[in-house]
């Protein structure tokens, strides 16, 4: 299952809820302001680390570039996909949950 998070974890509880309610083995994609959750050295780091333990985490490349975030600033283990990769993730996973 693919989970999408589009809100900053510093502002809203979307990533936190996604982390709590997504199953081990599922996939999480951060888009829009959700990509701020991938920043290394931030206070939400632990949340994303706990996701990475048993889930795969992706971040939308177009959205990190728009926000001036470099790949080096991402938590290790997070992979970058573009919109074509976003579509592929929705194909690979049998359903999609958007944590708005």
């Amino acid at each position: 299952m693919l989970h999408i998070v589009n809100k900053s974890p510093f502002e809203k509880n979307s990533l936190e809820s996604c982390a709590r309610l997504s199953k081990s083995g599922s996939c999480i994609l951060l888009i829009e302001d959700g990509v701020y959750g991938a920043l290394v050295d931030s206070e939400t780091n632990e949340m994303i680390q706990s996701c990475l333990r048993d889930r795969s985490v992706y971040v939308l490349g177009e959205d990190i570039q728009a926000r001036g975030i470099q790949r080096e600033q991402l938590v290790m283990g997070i992979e970058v996909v573009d919109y074509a990769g976003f579509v592929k993730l929705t194909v690979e996973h049998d359903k999609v949950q958007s944590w708005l």
Partner: protein
Amino acid sequence: MSEELQSGIVKKFLYINRRAPHGTNYAQEGLEVALIGAAFDQDVAMAYLDDGVFQLKTGQDTKTIGTKNFSATYRVLGDYDVKRVYVERESLECRGLSEGDLMPLVYEDEDNDWEEKPLIHIVSAEEMQQIIDESDVLINF
């Protein structure tokens, strides 16, 4: 309804409600979908988590703020073929609420002499994970 729909595809729809009522109208518009969905003979369940649990709070009365009071509509969910309403326990506890703060929703069980049965199931975060994971179509409010 189109022919294809009558051909018998039945999917598990889960309406996930994560927002408080009244501050936004997602709660109200979410109810509208659930009620209309009844006409489609799908397997429909509702999930209330995060601030969504406030939607089921007893004693809501919007006369004072002049907005539409739709909280009575929750009571008819059972009549619209919604047989399962899940509320996450962790979300309740974090907000200082317990099951007693929620409206007592029921449905009439047609397989059991129309006996009234509770519609609300309080579930753990782990059970909610499973409920989400087993659904086919997830619509969020």
